[in-house]
């Protein structure tokens, strides 16, 4: 029996594609071809990471593709992106996982064929990585505990070391938020009175309504710590609506443009700026190094900075890049 037209076409197409893949992969072995998968693009934080990576790719002449899931908790969608991109001729992958484990399984086939993978922003669960046999070339991310600690110190200073505060938490179970909150709690223990901690899922509208409820339940509250800027902006709005601007200190973490502008205006007391843009740049730099067979550090800490009214202008001017110098193992980008 003769093979059907469909089968023959399919076989030819498959072979052609195979040849093409092999050709593209071997054409430039010393040049990175970077694929980055982040959580979602509706959060300006991940947009900044994407923009940093793409800008650095242009600078180095390295092709960079950035994809994302549908939302902050889209574990499966993110996996499907990785599985799809695993079959394209990328030779270095950067991934911001949704949680401590979700991307490990789809990354394993990539890791097993020896392609370098860089864990970005949110650290994968070290034990799960080891158990699964996943190999990571490096971790690039900011120290979220440190960010929580800085937020706490600023809160203590603003409140003269005493008073009632509330915490707006991120999505339950999200690691970065947990580290931020833990460090904050540790630093204010015995000084500030945390009267309430409630998740607002990193969302502005949810933070607004939760803060309104908090203000009703605790009219004498002095400070609100939000685990990200979108929630901080929501809380600041609720404070403004309640006519309590200036009486309640709102501090959040991330340093998105709108938050820095709010700090400048005084509705938000401070934001601890992380630099996802720099993370994106460093990810591409690290990929280029690894692909060229050079060593990169296992753990690269990206910069963070407390932004208050004093330096908000400076921060805005340089945005999305850091306005201060920091240690970049790849040289100042």
């Amino acid at each position, binding site marked *: 029996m003769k093979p059907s037209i469909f089968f023959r076409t*399919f076989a030819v*197409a*498959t072979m*052609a*594609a*195979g040849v*093409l*893949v092999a050709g593209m992969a071997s054409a430039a072995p010393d040049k990175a071809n970077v694929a980055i998968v982040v959580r*979602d*693009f509706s959060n300006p934080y991940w947009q900044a990471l994407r923009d940093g990576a793409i800008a650095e790719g242009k600078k180095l002449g390295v092709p960079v*593709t950035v*994809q*994302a*899931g*549908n*939302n902050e*908790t*889209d*574990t*499966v*969608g993110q*996996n*499907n*992106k990785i*599985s*799809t*991109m*695993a*079959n*394209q001729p990328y030779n270095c992958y950067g991934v911001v996982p*949704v*949680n*401590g*484990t*979700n*991307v*490990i*399984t*789809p990354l*394993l*086939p990539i890791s097993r064929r020896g392609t370098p993978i860089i864990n970005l922003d949110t650290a994968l*669960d070290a*034990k*799960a990585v080891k*158990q*699964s046999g996943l190999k990571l070339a490096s971790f690039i991310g900011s120290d979220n505990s440190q960010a929580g600690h800085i937020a706490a110190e600023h809160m203590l200073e603003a409140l003269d070391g005493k008073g009632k505060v509330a915490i707006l938490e991120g*999505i*339950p*179970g*999200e690691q970065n938020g*947990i580290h931020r909150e833990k460090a904050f709690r540790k630093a204010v223990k015995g000084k500030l009175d945390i009267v309430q901690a409630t*998740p607002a899922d990193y969302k502005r509208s949810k933070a607004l309504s939760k803060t309104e409820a908090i203000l009703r339940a605790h009219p004498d509250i002095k400070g609100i710590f939000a685990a990200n800027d979108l929630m901080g902006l929501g809380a600041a709005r609720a404070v403004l609506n309640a006519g309590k601007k200036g009486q309640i200190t709102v501090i959040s973490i991330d340093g998105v443009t709108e938050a820095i502008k709010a700090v400048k205006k005084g509705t938000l007391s401070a934001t601890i700026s992380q630099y996802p843009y720099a993370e994106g740049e460093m990810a591409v730099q690290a990929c280029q190094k690894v692909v060229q067979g050079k060593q990169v550090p296992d753990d690269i800490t990206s910069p963070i900075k407390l932004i208050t009214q004093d330096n908000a202008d400076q921060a805005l001017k340089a945005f999305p890049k850091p306005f201060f110098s920091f240690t970049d193992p790849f040289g100042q980008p």
Partner: protein
Amino acid sequence: MTVSARVARYLPLRDPTFWGDNAALIGLILIGAGFSVLSPYFLTWGNITALLVSASILIVLASAQQFTIVAAGIDLSIAANLPWTAVVFGLVFNAGWGIATAIIAAILAGALVGTINGLIIARLKVTDFIATLGMLGVMSGLALIASHGQSFSVFSGFLQTLALDAIGPIRYFYLIALAVVIAAHVLFKHTAFGTHVLATGGNREAARNMGIPVDRMRVAVYAINGALVGVAGVLLVARTGGADPSIATNELLTSIAAVVLGGSSLFGGRASMLGTVAGALVLTTLLNGFTLLQVSSFYQPIAVGLVVIAAAVLSRFQK
């Protein structure tokens, strides 16, 4: 004889009901053909495998959804039942009870939620939409409570094999989805139970008059739906390496979209497992192709939405 004339002899292309009945399958072929022209990677075995693996969880969830939709119901609680079964699975396994017990626990936990849905709907006469919307809230809270609001790692060699290994070129992961689909197909088309369920969905009063225990049928479809969500929960943990209590809204919406794409009516009485699988594959293929072509994520839901509407328009021509 020209090719088109030959094709026309076998396929009733001028008959609008042909297009209506096979909307998802035709869509899948067209979309697949389009992507294979646009991307050299689309028709590689590696990518087809990735596509089928990516579609597996959705196929199982859409099969679960199919059971309720056939009976003129709908299950919104899937978005919370899925993480709930994943959390139960993870907790039981991490407590050292072994993989088999954990799988059974996940399926039972899901079936329990489904049964409660069914009882609220059939006994307390609450509409499906409201009952499952209520359970969506209840179960998402319980999943958070059971997991202390934390996602946690669940590692086992068995799960890794399930997620990554293959018999020859066939991955275990989608074999499970295939098994679920075949079982559901047989149940709908070749058993008395299936006939009764279809009758219940098609015309409840007529079914009741024929002596079909309509209420029991409705509880049964929700129980099966829940058990299948449990199966999907196990696949989810295998694929994501852990249990995450976050609500799975995407999975809920795509499971309904897949069934509707597949030609099943939301008013019940129609089951097409082939259509549902094709529907799930259409949705997954769109995302796969767009990712290969590096189309921005913002455009992807637009395409998915348009395809769902197009399929619904075509399905007006169903027999």
